[in-house]
């Protein structure tokens, strides 16, 4: 890249849209512990890019994706984000999974006034002017999950999570909710990301005699947790687990013999009905294989590319500020149903769904919010949540 172009950072880097293509960045872990999840997200983004290009591109320009490997290492995410912005001069970046990686890149996007689309459910309590959050915030996933448990008459829960910012913050919210709603939290345990020894935690869960478990474990740990859970004689009937980070892909790798009957809270399942989803699932399987499931973060990532396209076209420009300005009210007929960008928070309206894992490994919806829920990252609309942020 030219030196002057790269150095022009004080006022933000302008994307290079001089040719007949527009570059976008794909920032996911292709190696390390998070590759397990993030590779599928990259695949979904690539699918959207190809579809859009086949349909003529964005503002007449074909999208040229530039991939970088975040390597499951947060500082590397920051380095690669800066590279995509300054060297490749991409118009937008799609990616990141863990909240830790998002926290690492956030200052980079803010400093350079560049756009990130973040496709994973997260803990809320954040709002960056340069990030669009296309996954669920807490009131679109965790709170509905708790409401569901309450509706089922559960009086006590045990909290199990990975030791990082998303589960810890989520559990803080859960505890606030529990206190206000007469739910007892009988214990709270964390395992480091990647940890696979759950003997003690499961013993503690079992001894607590809680009526349900709220699970915010991420990645590999889920496999070990559910195998241990079943071995300890705990079942979906005796003590159901509500998980917020296992989707179809994870179900597939844990094994239905360990999971049948357990609950998940998401905004999308492969089985979600609707023409948009049928098309998405079909296209995905055609490209990546019939045995590859689609999942919520993949769908959110796929949607984010379309949302960006719609924003750009509404703004008539790739310019970041103009695109941001055009965001409010942009809609897309997504696989999960209609989604709408909330310009004020840069989150999107999403439908909340509780699903039950079936014997065939697919998740079927047992409850939904009836329509898109307005995003409320700071839980301002919930009285029990005052003091959280």
């Amino acid at each position, binding site marked *: 890249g030219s030196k002057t172009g790269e150095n022009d950072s004080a006022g933000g880097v302008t994307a290079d849209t001089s040719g007949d293509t527009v570059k976008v960045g794909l920032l996911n872990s292709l190696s390390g512990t998070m590759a397990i999840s993030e590779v599928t997200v990259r695949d979904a983004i690539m699918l959207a890019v190809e579809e859009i290009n086949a349909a003529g591109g964005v503002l007449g320009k074909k999208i040229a994706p530039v991939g970088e490997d975040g390597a499951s290492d947060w500082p590397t995410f920051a380095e690669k984000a800066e590279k995509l912005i300054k060297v490749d001069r991409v118009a937008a970046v799609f990616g990141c999974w863990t909240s830790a990686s998002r926290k690492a890149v956030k200052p980079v996007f803010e400093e350079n006034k560049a756009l990130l689309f973040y496709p994973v459910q997260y803990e809320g309590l954040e709002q960056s002017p340069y990030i669009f959050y296309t996954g669920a915030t807490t009131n679109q996933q965790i709170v509905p999950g708790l409401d569901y448990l309450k509706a089922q008459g559960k009086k006590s829960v045990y909290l199990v999570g990975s030791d990082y910012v998303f589960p810890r913050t989520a559990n803080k919210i859960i505890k606030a909710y529990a206190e206000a709603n007469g739910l007892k939290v009988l214990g709270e345990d964390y395992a*480091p990301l990647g940890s696979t020894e759950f003997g003690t935690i499961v013993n503690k869960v079992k001894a607590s005699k809680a009526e349900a478990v709220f699970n915010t474990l991420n990645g590999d740990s889920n496999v070990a947790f559910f195998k241990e859970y079943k071995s300890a004689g705990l079942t979906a009937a005796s003590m159901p687990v509500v998980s917020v980070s296992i989707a179809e892909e994870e179900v597939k790798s844990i094994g239905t013999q360990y999971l049948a009957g357990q609950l998940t809270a998401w905004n999308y399942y492969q089985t979600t009905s609707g023409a948009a989803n049928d098309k998405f699932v079909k296209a995905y399987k055609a490209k990546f294989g019939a045995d590859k499931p689609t999942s919520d973060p993949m769908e959110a990532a796929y949607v984010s590319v379309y949302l960006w396209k719609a924003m750009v076209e509404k703004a008539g420009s790739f310019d970041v500020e103009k695109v941001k300005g055009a965001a409010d009210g942009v809609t897309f007929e997504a696989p999960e149903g209609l989604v709408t960008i909330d310009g004020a928070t840069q989150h999107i309206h999403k439908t909340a769904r509780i699903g039950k894992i079936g014997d065939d490994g697919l998740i079927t919806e047992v409850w939904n919010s009836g329509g898109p829920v307005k995003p409320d990252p700071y839980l301002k609309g919930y009285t029990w949540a005052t003091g959280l942020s």
Partner: protein
Amino acid sequence: MKALTEMNPRLRAGLGFGLGAVVLFAAAPALLTDFRLSLLAKYLCFAIVAVGIGLAWGRGGLLTLGQGVFFGLGGYAMAMHLKLADAGEGNMPDFMELYGQLDELPAWWAPFANPAFALAATVLLPMLVAFGLGSLVFRRRVRGAYFAILSQALAAAMVILLIGQQGTTGGTNGLTDIEGFFGYDLDDPVNQRMVYFIIAGVLLALLALTRQLMHSRYGELLVAVRDSEERVRFLGYNPANVKLVAYVVAAGMAGLAGALFVPAVGIISPALIGIVPSIEFVIGVAVGGRAALLGPVLGAVAVAWAKTALSERFPGTWTYLQGAMFVLVVAFLPGGLASLWGLVKRRREATVPPTPPAEQPVLVKEAAA
């Protein structure tokens, strides 16, 4: 070139430092874009860690697989100060209110508001920890693979500890979003350059210090301890102390490197101090040449640069290339890249008609690990 090898070693060293200064202070800033220069600043921080490892491992035989710990201590000490400075007098860093739900600053954070304390701590804290652990471990003659595995476990334990204290350490996130550096705005490219120059200067100064140490009597004694610790004891030295000096100095360097890394990159997190980065530090040293003075610097920069360059060019397959590089260099070039020069020289000599072999200087035995 022949003249160079015969030159007075001090003169040669002086020339070398001059050359290094020209490269770091003139050539690099002129040729590189701001983004690449900031990456170089990061690599140079790793190089500072590597200089210390070169001393402790290359000379002293202490395979320390936990330098990330000291890097982290220095980095966190600096980042804590900068976070407090960013927050402003009397305020708490943003993440604490958010995730820690703390009403006031934890007591152990408070002193870091003082810039002098924080600066001193970046170097002294790692040295202190190294001193504590080293005194225990060396005095009881834990060494070789034992020491290597133990130091590795230390890095793992430190990471777990940091991650578990999210409210006060930032957990896995680490301390991010650092904006100012003693009053200078780090967003400003001019100030980023200043940070680069500081790092380059510190690296050169530490190289000079290390060279002096390596060539001193202490340097010889350190090699003696590496070769035969027990024998040194019978000469009236306590080898634990000899090792301790190298270990503590290396820890101090790693701490300083961590402290400088923070303004250069704007983040410090457990991901930078665990087992993987700690091993990568050591591999950089091995790739460059563990026993040479400049080997570790070259290796650290080469390995970090290769990681960036390879992963940019081959995002899907770069780990093959990285792994292969580690394997090939360490297995087949035990002296590291620094020994290439010697190999080339030897090849050239080999084509010269052989002088009577008996008179030739005896070859240095391969540095045993």
